[in-house]
């Protein structure tokens, strides 16, 4: 089986005619870590609810582990584990009691049950708190307890919804290691998170959902590269126009090809206060920092390709001569914001 999850035109329309998921086509490779990104209200939760058989799709289909979510919901449920954002274990029970209950709900054989729980508690390093009530645990301990309860039936596919939200950096890193280890052990992991660094670091593939549609899907590096390519394309007109002017040196043409829409570093031949004031007044420039080597580090607060063009025009019109332009590689956050900024506001309403 190549893919752990496949959806074909998966659609969910709620009773109030709100289309939460709209013809979603998605493939999540088996034994991979998939990052599901999207702004709030994008349709991630509804997608997960359909994949975990909590709600029925309105149309389209989905298979999980080869089983159809409509026709074989119990087989699908047996394959899944879920660590929700809000820890949903019974607060008045201990980790062991909660895990035992989950094991019994999934039909784990009694003679294996307690050994499995012990092993899992060791794996996530929570054995020391095994007799504590859930209500007595810290945030990180609760997430670990939730992992134990979710893994006790050895699910092939594990959904993690914001697993590290609110955790301190050390606990966060422990959980990241754990997620990697679980993946190494053969679990397919679907990670929903707003932590772009986390997704960038952990995930093999990333899908960005917006207004119920999959608007981007690739490896994290692939997404970043495609944004870079997109930027180049968007700036081609700008390059042509600016390069024709004397005040931009020929060498900057190459630099401009690598420009990022949001962050750039500009070195002027004739930098002065007047030019800096003009740059500061630009509506596109969010911040300006003068580096020790004289470079101007600009943060552009827009994704409009004209923003960079406008800023450069402002510099040139105020007498500035651009010596060179450098840019940073786009981050996954840049990709996310770019992908989700092209939202049809009417569709989100």
């Amino acid at each position, binding site marked *: 089986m190549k893919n752990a999850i496949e959806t074909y035109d998966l659609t969910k329309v709620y009773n109030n005619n709100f289309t939460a998921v709209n013809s979603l086509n998605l493939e999540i490779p088996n034994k991979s870590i998939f990052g599901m990104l999207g702004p709030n209200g994008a349709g991630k939760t509804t997608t997960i*609810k359909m994949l*975990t*058989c*909590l*709600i029925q799709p309105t149309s389209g289909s989905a298979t999980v582990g080869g089983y159809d979510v409509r026709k074989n*919901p*119990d*087989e699908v*449920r*047996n394959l*899944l584990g*879920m660590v*929700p954002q*809000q*820890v*949903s*274990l*019974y*607060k008045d029970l201990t980790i062991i009691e909660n895990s035992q209950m*989950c094991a019994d*709900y*999934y*039909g784990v054989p009694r003679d294996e049950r307690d050994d499995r729980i012990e092993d899992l508690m060791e794996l996530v390093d929570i054995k020391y708190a095994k007799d504590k009530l859930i209500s007595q645990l810290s945030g990180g301990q609760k997430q670990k307890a939730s992992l134990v*309860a979710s893994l006790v039936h050895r699910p092939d596919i594990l959904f993690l919804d914001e697993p590290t939200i609110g955790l301190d950096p050390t606990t966060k890193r422990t959980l990241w290691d754990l997620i990697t280890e679980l993946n190494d052990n053969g679990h397919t992991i679907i990670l929903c998170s707003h932590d772009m660094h986390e997704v960038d670091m952990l995930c093999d593939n990333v899908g960005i959902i917006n207004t119920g549609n999959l608007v981007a899907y690739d490896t994290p590096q692939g997404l970043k590269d495609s944004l870079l390519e997109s930027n180049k394309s968007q700036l081609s007109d700008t390059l042509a126009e600016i390069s024709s002017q004397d005040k931009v040196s020929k060498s900057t043409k190459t630099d401009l090809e690598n420009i990022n829409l949001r962050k750039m570093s500009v070195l002027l031949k004739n930098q002065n206060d007047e030019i800096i004031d003009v740059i500061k007044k630009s509506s596109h420039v969010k911040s300006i920092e003068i580096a020790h080597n004289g470079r101007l580090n600009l943060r552009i607060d827009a994704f409009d390709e004209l923003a960079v063009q406008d800023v450069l025009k402002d510099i040139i019109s105020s007498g500035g001569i651009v010596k060179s332009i450098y840019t940073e590689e786009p981050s996954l956050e840049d990709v996310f914001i770019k992908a989700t900024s092209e939202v049809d506001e009417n569709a989100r309403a």
Partner: protein
Amino acid sequence: MLELNKFWWMIKKELISLKRHPSRLFAILVFPIIMILLFGYGMGGEMTDLPVVVVSQSHGDLTDLTLDTIKTTETYHVVEVIDDLDEGKQRVDSGEVKAAIILPSDYDKESSSQKSVTLYLDSSDQMAAQILESSTQGIFYRLSNMVAAQTSVSTQDADIEPSIGHSLNNFKDDISLHINRIYGNIKYIDFLVPAVLGMTVMMSCMMGMGATIAGERETGELARLFMTPTSVSTVIGGKIASKLLIELVRALILIVMAILLFNVSIKGGILQTFIVLVVGALCFVGFGIMLSARTQTQEDYAQIVLPFSMPMMFVSGVFYPIETMPWIFQKLAYIFPLTYLNDAMRAIMLKGQNLGDVWLDLVILLGFTALFFIIGVKRFNRDV
């Protein structure tokens, strides 16, 4: 100014929240109206039109005068005047009427022996019984005085018919009212306790069950259960069983406390009382499941359940007899399961009847239970 702004936001937030939760707004607006209606018409009114039969085994002027007086007294609603003593008693025993006023065959006859009028009274309905008792005593006291005055006039008035004056005169001297309380002398607490037990079970089951479902939905615990290969009916069944177990213990405690604290006598036995309470608990757990099937939060559930539980408490005869309420409330009472639970509880505890005697109440309660479960399971979905 800043603080005022914050203060205003507190109010504004509540108003917006209410606007966005129509069910809460409805409950807040309608609930006080329902309460005023119930208290005003139900508890504030006088107890009138209590159903009685008159067993009249005599004929004559005194009988006619007595019947007229009874019929024109607001306390009574004379269902029928009959002459069969056994039928009159049977109607009281069956609960069809609250009392039978029995006028003996020698009531209108001139006789030297004392005439004995009997009030055959359903004393299990303590409040109605008290009213009927005092009202009947008052009627015959007034009749006596009226007759005495009439007789006094008749001795000086040649126009009055001698036979009537003689008869009424005899009545004054010879009549006695014998009260037959068929279930003994029942105190108000005895009347109240069976229904309070039922009411407590109702409140506990409805509030507890709904809060459990809505609460677990809110915290995501229910979602975790529904992600396992488990059917909705299994989850609901498990919830019911656990709640019922708690309610059984609670019912036992209630019964024991009622006996210890109020010295309440349970004529039908503790086991039968317990069984009736269990059937009631099952019914109200079902009610809670039905109402909470799609409720998202505990707060929402509390607002939704009140318009059902509070009217049921006041209309179902916990504190005062259903027969004394306005007709619309009387009709309403019969669509509430608590009415049948109260009826069965009083029959077992006060009248000493057995489960066979209250079969109809139990069947209706079980019918409600089945209905609530079916609707609850159908309305329930895994979308938590």
